[in-house]
């Protein structure tokens, strides 16, 4: 349970994250109930950034577990320090320790390497635990995660059960590349994160790039909003918008109508596949720029 104040939305905006009402409420509820929050949405809508911002406003540590195919317990939970163990065994050759004592020694806390999940439950102050792209992990790992998320304890055969000293604020993100199990979904609060609307996107650009001119920022936001409606393989996210805005500033472009050639070349910041670059031809760019200006 946390002491977070109800104005989480304004606190998030103070650290540069502009959440809508639904997302802010879901976050607040997750903090109040001590339940994990599952965030789904397209890549690039700012799911990972929420965890960073939350850690920032709660003034606590962010512990991140990046999921991938084949993620196993030794990368996610804990691992023994084998090099140290081997050295210790060698060093004990001339000591009086018997085999049982030696075994107990090398499988003690001092030889344990904490990985993100174990690290997260052993903090003095509740950290934010970000389990990123859970859909990339295997189903077996997802099943294991269920136990940790409901009991907040981890069993190490050699040491016994380690209970959480503090309950972390857990944020899970998924890009929807595979269906998550109902059991995992039921343990979490849920929020679907969409691309920001025009106003929010403009706020983000102005907050992240304080030196940008308001007119250009408005044009960029409108251009990107219109671009997302085109048929694209990879729709540009907010990170791409910020990259593009920064690129335009560095190219000294003051209006999207000014320099069509430079504008077209700068689209590599927004469009990340060959077919997308091909489909947004100069004519399309100038039409979108004209509408945005």
């Amino acid at each position, binding site marked *: 349970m946390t002491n977070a104040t109800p104005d989480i939305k304004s606190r998030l905006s103070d650290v540069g994250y502009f959440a809508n009402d639904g997302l802010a409420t879901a976050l607040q509820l997750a903090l109040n109930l001590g339940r994990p929050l599952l965030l789904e949405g397209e890549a690039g809508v700012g799911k990972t950034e929420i965890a960073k911002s939350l850690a920032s406003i709660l003034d606590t540590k962010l512990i991140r577990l990046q999921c991938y195919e084949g993620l196993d317990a030794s990368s996610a939970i804990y691992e023994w320090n*084998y090099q140290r163990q081997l050295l210790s065994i060698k060093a004990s050759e001339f000591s009086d320790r018997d085999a049982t004592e030696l075994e107990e020694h090398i499988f003690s806390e001092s030889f344990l390497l904490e990985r993100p999940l174990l690290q997260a439950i052993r903090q003095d102050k509740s950290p934010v635990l970000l389990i990123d792209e859970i859909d990339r992990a295997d189903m077996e790992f997802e099943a294991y995660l269920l136990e940790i998320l409901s009991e907040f304890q981890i069993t190490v055969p050699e040491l016994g059960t380690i209970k959480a000293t503090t309950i972390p604020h857990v944020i899970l993100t998924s890009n929807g590349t595979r269906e998550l199990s109902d059991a995992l979904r039921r343990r979490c609060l849920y929020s679907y994160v969409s691309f920001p609307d025009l106003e929010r996107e403009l706020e983000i650009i102005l907050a992240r790039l304080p030196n940008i001119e308001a007119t250009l920022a408005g044009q960029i936001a409108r251009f990107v909003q219109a671009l997302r409606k085109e048929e694209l393989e990879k729709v540009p996210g907010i990170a791409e918008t910020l990259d593009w805005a920064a690129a335009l500033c560095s190219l000294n472009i003051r209006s999207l109508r000014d320099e069509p050639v430079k504008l077209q070349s700068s689209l590599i910041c927004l469009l990340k596949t060959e077919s997308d670059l091909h489909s947004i031809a100069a004519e399309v760019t100038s039409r979108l720029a004209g509408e945005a200006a």
Partner: protein
Amino acid sequence: MQTLSHPLTTRTVGFIEHLRMNGFAVGPSESEACLSHIIGKTTGERGLDHDRMKALLTGCKEEWDSFDKLFESYWIGAGKSRERMKKTTPSTRTSKNLPQAWKNHFGDDEAAEKAPQIESEGGTEVGETASGRLIAVDQNTRMKIDLRQFVEPDEIAAAEALAYRLASAIRYRLSRRFYNSRKTTRLDMRRTIRRNMKHGGTPIDLSFKAKPQQPVRIIVFLDVSGSMQHYSRFFLQFVKGLVCQWAQTDAYLFHTKLVRVADAMSDKNSFRAMTRLSLMAEGFGGGTKLGDCLETFNRQYAKKTLNGRSIVMIFSDGYEVGEPDRLCEQLVKIKKRARRLVWLNPLLGWQNYQPITAAMNAAKPLVDHFAVANTLQSLAAIETDLMKL
């Protein structure tokens, strides 16, 4: 938690029941959390309470999208709606109401007993002794058959068993990093250390980790156009078997449109599954536009469905009315995301048949495995090929 006497408690319990009736997976723990953390602390501000309930009571994008409507219908007086229940209850529709377009895709018992030969333009079918042999049946008789009656326990069981066998044949694929690795296994340091304590820590007896195996994901596209009507019944059984037996399967039917049927087919009750399928079939009929259908798939589902462990299986005779180039373009997109592309063509079982349609010719270079599939036996025969994929 709030007591039952709280004015909002009964209403909220009713709302949770309302969500359940509309297919939301809301359990007692969500109900308890809702009552204790939302109703007890309600601000009277509808927007805030709505947002809180939405975060607490939804679990996936579909629920997220439909929540607003259900919330409004319940709390703002539009009344309860039970749309989904209406759709899935078999008793709500009679055979008379079933779409005619589908009836051609299923045989019937009577016709099956008669077992006439295929009325083909290209020749007679090879291997006619097969138990799952495909037949051309009398049009008039077939038109009278209720779609749901096509379910025959024996054939379903045989098709399901075969589906499971084929899926098992391509069940696991090693991760690329292990597959490419020259080393046969990875050292299990934890066990090695324990085992070699007796040797003073010198690693003499080594333990190895088993190679992790990842299940493949099977995506099936089944052509249910007019030209495939004799085969649809058989293939549908096979696809149903695959969907029911194999967790990681996604199934689509296509004609001039694409319909995702994995959810409907995963219903273990075959009768109900077929009723759901017939409800989805409305509007189908005419030729095959595989190119258009695959474009829909690539736009809406590919990102979520395909990955490096996906095997895409297309059951079609390749009689495409769309542009072959368009089909190629979409197949290339699928190939970029999926591991393998398998095309099963029932017409290959005919004597003298050559896949010479423009669409088939255009697609062939992109297909990893092209095989005949017109009987259970012929499908079973591809098992060894699938194992190599």
